[in-house]
């Protein structure tokens, strides 16, 4: 018999040892994306984990160097596709920062509504997936009805649902319709009920608590050292939130709390996300009130949906494109990216669905960025993953991954 050939690089002396090497992924139902973890397990206990990054690397940063600014927005959709509107708006705000555009208050509030809605959608997915991975499949279908209604709002505002490509530099592509406001109001009556039901099913469920408490913990110090942000850092006990630390988009006018955990385990991450959803509901309420107050005070504000200074960066309305030659030419130039940006170097970050989403942009004044770097929180979480699951059980490893909310698209970019 010939020697067996090993095309896969195995750990040192892995054929002689008493432990098992287990490939968790790249296509495993619990990884929710394309991740590979080569685990070294002793029975069910995880001794060592080697994550592989880059399975779906699509060279977004490099592609972005050849794309005019508007064509980069769809790339940001595909980072964290559970909350694409936040990515889109973060990118638009980065360009606004570069161009020095100041957005009107109404645009800020509308953006906040959309961003908080997508934060809720993101957290709903993450938390219900923890449920799925612990075996409680039913909660998942319950909250997906809420997520569906959030997507209907996106559909009403921009026409698409998952990868939204929502908004433009300086604001939105068109004004919010009456229907979208009706849908948001309707959603606000349903969300608290749905969240309450979700909490009743899981929060104090003895089996769920036993599964999640103490699973995949990380200390505040380690989390900070790794560069954690977002709910995963807050679950470890650090109250860092970009919306408060360096407010953008008029977040400073809003009154909300930052839920913070203590142990940084799966249960804390779950509770922090749960708390953030309630805060988001309250932020949306406040934003709607502010929009209404603004429209009452200045009736002409009703038609403001983008910054006038961004005119040279904003697509003309469709009816103008079809009837006026200048608009058509301008539309063409916009789409083909024949508009030059100012030279400069900016960094802008927003509080994304699962952490600080940052855009580091260097422009040399041309039609495309000279260099664009996405700060993707998942990239950082995934590096801490082996440390977090070490000495835990296989089941812990799986719920830790889902509670970190690592999204393959964002991890590999």
């Amino acid at each position, binding site marked *: 018999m010939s020697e067996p050939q090993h095309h896969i690089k195995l750990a040192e002396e892995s054929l002689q040892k008493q432990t098992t090497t287990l490939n968790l992924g790249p296509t495993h139902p619990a990884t929710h994306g394309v991740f590979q973890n080569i685990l070294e397990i002793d029975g069910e206990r995880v001794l060592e984990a080697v994550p592989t990054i880059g399975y779906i690397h699509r060279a977004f940063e490099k592609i972005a160097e050849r794309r005019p600014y508007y064509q980069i927005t769809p790339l940001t959709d595909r980072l964290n596709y559970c909350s694409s509107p936040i990515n889109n708006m973060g990118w638009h705000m980065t360009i606004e920062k570069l161009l020095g555009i100041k957005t009107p208050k109404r645009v800020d509030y509308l953006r906040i509504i959309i961003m908080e809605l997508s934060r809720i959608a993101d957290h709903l997915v993450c938390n219900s997936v923890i449920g799925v991975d*612990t075996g409680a*499949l*039913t909660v998942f279908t*319950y909250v997906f009805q809420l997520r569906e209604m959030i997507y209907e709002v996106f559909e009403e505002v921009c026409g698409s649902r998952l990868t939204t490509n929502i908004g433009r530099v300086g604001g939105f592509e068109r004004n919010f319709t009456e229907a979208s406001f009706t849908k948001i109001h309707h959603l606000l009556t349903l969300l608290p009920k749905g969240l309450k039901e979700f909490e009743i099913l899981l929060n104090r469920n003895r*089996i769920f608590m036993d*599964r999640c408490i103490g699973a995949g913990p990380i200390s505040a110090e380690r989390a900070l050292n790794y560069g954690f942000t977002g709910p995963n850092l807050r679950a470890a006990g650090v109250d860092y939130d970009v919306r408060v630390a360096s407010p953008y988009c008029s977040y400073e006018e809003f009154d909300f709390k930052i839920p913070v955990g203590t142990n940084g385990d799966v249960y804390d991450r779950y509770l922090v996300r749960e708390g953030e959803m309630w805060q988001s509901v309250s932020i949306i309420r406040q934003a709607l009130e502010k929009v209404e107050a603004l429209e009452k005070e200045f009736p002409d504000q009703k038609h403001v949906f983008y910054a006038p200074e961004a005119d040279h960066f904003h697509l003309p309305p469709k009816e103008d494109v079809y009837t006026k030659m200048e608009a058509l030419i301008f539309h063409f130039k916009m789409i083909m990216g024949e508009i030059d940006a100012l030279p400069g170097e900016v960094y802008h970050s927003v509080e994304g669905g699962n952490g600080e989403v940052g855009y580091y942009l260097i422009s040399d004044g041309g039609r495309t960025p000279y260099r664009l770097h996405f700060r993707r929180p998942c990239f950082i979480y995934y590096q801490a993953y082996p440390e977090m699951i070490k000495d835990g*059980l296989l089941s812990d490893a799986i719920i830790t991954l889902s509670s970190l909310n690592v999204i393959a698209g964002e991890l590999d970019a």
Partner: protein
Amino acid sequence: MLLLQVDMAFLIEKILLITVILFGSLGIAMYATWGERKVAAVMQDRLGPDRAGPFGLLQPLADGLKLFMKEEIIPDRSTKFLFILGPCLSMLTALMTSAIVPWGPDFVAASGHIFTLQVADINIGVLYVFGVVSLGVYGIMLGGWASNNKFSLLSSIRSASQAISYELPMGISLIALLMMTGTLSLREIVQQQHGFWADGYFSWNFFKQPLGFIIFLTCSFAELNRAPFDLPECESELNMGYHQEYSSMKLGFYLFAEYINLFVSSAILITLFFGGYNFPFMDQVATGLNSPILFTLICVLAFMTKVICMILFFMFVRWTLPRFRFDQLMKLGWKSLIPLALVNMLITAAVILLFFNKP
């Protein structure tokens, strides 16, 4: 020459009964899959199967046909004999248990011939159930081990240790019951639970052994590998576990065996704790009807209704609770259920000694 001495009528009767029960349990298992999907759909605000036939009633047939048509794949590196033996053993043990379930009361024909609605009334019925159920885990173990897949192996290890751990409290909880009944024959256990009310108390064992019932029920969940104890096949960790490498009807056998087990376990639970085919006011009904065949049918119907309620209960729990982690499962079995079962046994023994000890 021994065979010739056997009463031919008896033989035919038993063969008929076996055929009916075999196909009956297969049919019920088939529709249990449909029921499970419908229950899940109702609980999750979905529609469930509704394309094949009215209310999707032909869905199980379509599924079965699909499984038969699928390509049969036996992994190259598997132990082929054991790989094939696994699902067969699972199916065999699942079907064997139904032999001792008393489906209805004896039915006396006009000719004076007594028909027993039970394939075999063995006097060690309960032990037989335990024996067969313990064998059931071999199917899973062999299948998972022979697949030569790490996930399957993990799953069969889980399954084996789970089955061993949960048979103990299950057995101990039954000892308490058996001390009361004084017999191991399921037929006699059912007859003791006649009607609903006797001697100023409920006659069903559930009311006499509530703690024993809860322990037995919990262990049944574990023995059936159903949520919250579905660790061997938890889809999110071990991607379907022991039957990961199986395809075609061998996979079908595993899935099917699971539902037959669900049906038979419910039948055993009903027999032991909820009076089997007995129902309230059965004596009045029997005298009022004055037709033994109709009465027997009503009894069978009562039994089936109870069994279906039990199956539904199993399903509701499955779609509500998350699953345990492996160490927690072991902890629950060894540190909670066994002591509880022992306490239950002691209490029962003390009560029998003090109050029912008639020399």
